[in-house]
């Protein structure tokens, strides 16, 4: 139990040597600071316990407000009500919309000294107009997570291009009609944005003082055509992921891959722990043979909110977790995240592979290779609207058998209309 400063001083008042120490303590009559902290990764509790044990003056209280989408909705609502937590984990996709809604605090002065721990591209994910709004926590370089044993059993080579992916999908269907290479439902907005970026599309970009929106640019529409063909030929499913239905297929070994990002092994392990050892990770297939570029899917940053009464202490926790060796060890071992900092990524290379694929010794080496090739993505201020419209329109296209590219065009139109209505400068084109 911690003694109150006054009692502590009284007990030691005889000793002149410690008097100065007591004086410092009584200058802070409020006692320990408590920070509210919202985060969803597994293992966050351990992280907080470690910090609290080492920092009696800055106590962190963890709440799990749901996954990325859910958490950012609640954060926005809490902020509008004036009682947001001090610290919150936020996905890169929703950070701009939260900045526009005035949720995060600019913390440039508090965290500027840890910038060197990150690559320029990663740091740019949380910096807007020179103002820093968060410390990058984890990144999701895109990758193909697949059932190594089933691919081998069916004699299907691991695809390195999307053309090979189509051939692999057809080969899987022919060799085992009960299995399917993957499911890509309309809810996978982040995936489609990622592969469109990989193909050279730019869903949002900044042009001087104006936004431009490219959800229906030529590269993205070709991506739409490609996946539409796979779906209409029955080579992929378009059923939602992580439903009891999907999980049953993963457990039965009839769902053969998940093109997503390096965080996928943790997710699969949580729904099908018994399949550990049968999975492997490879770089995401490419649109052009020989290319190496991929985009990010997912990934998050830790922000300090406007409502925080202790922004300095909050920023201290954020930098400790994401830019210190101790913090990155916890990110890797306890939260199974792929750290955003170069420091953490270097440390990862000597780490054991995820428990889902213990045989893949080069997991983090491959991750580092992919990560070095990621193309930066700019997210716009209304990604949530884009995601919602995209899901509905693509769902409709799949059900009605209309072209997928129409869904991309409809999303583009809705996003531009919404941005114009809100008052953003959007260039036509």
């Amino acid at each position, binding site marked *: 139990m911690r003694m109150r400063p006054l009692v502590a001083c009284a007990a030691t008042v005889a000793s002149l040597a410690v008097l100065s120490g007591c004086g410092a303590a009584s200058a802070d009559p409020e006692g320990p600071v408590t920070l509210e902290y919202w985060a969803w990764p597994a293992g966050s509790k351990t992280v907080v316990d470690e910090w609290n044990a080492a920092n009696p003056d800055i106590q962190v209280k963890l709440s799990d407000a749901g996954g990325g989408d859910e958490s950012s*909705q609640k954060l926005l609502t809490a902020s509008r009500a004036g009682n947001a937590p001090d610290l919150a984990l936020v996905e890169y996709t929703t950070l701009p919309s939260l900045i526009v*809604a005035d949720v995060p605090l600019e913390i440039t002065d508090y965290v500027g000294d840890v910038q060197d721990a990150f690559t320029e591209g990663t740091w740019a994910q949380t910096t807007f107009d020179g103002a820093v709004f968060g410390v990058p926590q984890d990144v999701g370089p895109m990758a193909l997570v697949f059932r190594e044993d089933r691919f081998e059993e069916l004699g299907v080579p691991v695809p390195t291009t999307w053309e090979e992916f189509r051939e692999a999908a057809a080969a899987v269907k022919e060799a085992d009609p009960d299995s399917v290479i993957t499911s890509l439902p309309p809810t996978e907005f982040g995936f489609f944005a990622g592969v469109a970026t990989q193909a050279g599309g730019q869903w949002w970009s900044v042009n001087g003082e104006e936004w431009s929106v490219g959800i229906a640019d030529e590269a993205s529409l070709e991506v739409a055509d490609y996946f539409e063909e796979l779906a209409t030929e029955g080579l992929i499913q378009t059923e*939602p992921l*992580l439903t009891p239905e999907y999980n049953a297929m993963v457990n039965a070994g009839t769902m053969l891959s998940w093109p997503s990002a390096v965080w996928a092994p943790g997710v699969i392990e949580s729904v099908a722990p018994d399949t550990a050892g049968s999975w492997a990770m490879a770089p995401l297939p490419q649109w052009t043979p020989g290319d190496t570029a991929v985009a990010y899917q997912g990934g998050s940053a830790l922000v300090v909110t406007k409502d925080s009464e202790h922004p300095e202490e909050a920023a201290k926790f954020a930098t400790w977790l994401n830019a210190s060796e101790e913090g990155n060890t916890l990110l890797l071992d306890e939260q199974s995240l792929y750290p955003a900092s170069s420091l953490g990524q270097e440390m990862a290379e000597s780490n054991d592979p995820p428990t889902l694929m213990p045989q893949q010794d080069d997991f983090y080496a491959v991750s580092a290779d992919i990560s070095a090739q990621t193309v930066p993505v700019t997210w716009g201020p209304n990604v949530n609207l884009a995601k919602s419209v995209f899901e509905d329109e693509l769902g409709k296209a799949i059900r009605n058998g209309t072209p997928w590219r129409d869904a991309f065009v409809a999303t583009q139109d809705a996003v531009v209309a919404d941005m114009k209505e*809100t008052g953003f400068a959007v260039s036509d084109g």
Partner: protein
Amino acid sequence: MAPYLFTAPAVILYVAFMLVPVGYAVWLSLRAYRIEGALLGRKTEVFVGLDNYVAVLTNPEFAAGFGRLAVYGVIAVPLTLGLALLFALVLDTPAARLKRFGRTAIFIPYAVPGVVAALLWGFMYLPSTSPFSYVTRALGLGTIPFLDGPGLFGSLANIAIWGGVGFNMIIIYTSLRSIPGEIYESARLDGAGEVQIALRIKVPLVVPALVLTGVFSLIGTLQLYSEPATLQPMTSAISNTWVPLMTIYRDAFGTDDLPQAAAASTVLAVGTVLVSVVILRIVNRKRMGVER
């Protein structure tokens, strides 16, 4: 002074939790979050008059949501009321056994929260976990498409019917119990059988209860939310704007457009009141006509 004091608690609660929030919602519906033309400016609240109402009333998806509600309502409301009336009449016949048990058994689903009921039925609908599809597959008939196409309406209505019959039955049954026994006695003396008594005496006498439960069911239909929202992650057939309340939820919490959500809520509330008043008017006029 005393009368005011006695009514004060109710009035204060009504003002604080009804009038003030409603007034705030209406006020909010005339405003919008706007930014000045910068790349990442900050949103400020501005007055936009009826812009939000125009947007709501010209939104084809919002209107389509009402269309889907109508299909759902046409299935759910008559079946709920019909089954509730049937069960109430059966329980009210002198020959019925295990009345107390039957009443409780039919009422229990109403005590199951909507979200829990939707999850429970969701598992019974999903192909890999559905016992019904398991049987049809074993018979070589394939999987039942509970969550696709037109089947979805029936599946959603089924959840509401399962949960709603008990409550409506209790209201109708209570109304049946209040009919004086002498009426039945004289009917029997005149030679009426149980079926005739049910159709000619009981049903006309519980019409007020049927109207009440009908209006409740209609309001419940307009407020459909938790069942489709709970089933949404299980199927792509339910969009984010499937029913009006889902659109309102999305605008309020998903896309940060609380004023638009407030406008849509006002439209929905006014529409609900209008529909209820019109139906009550029609029913009352008809009944007065009969009595005359």
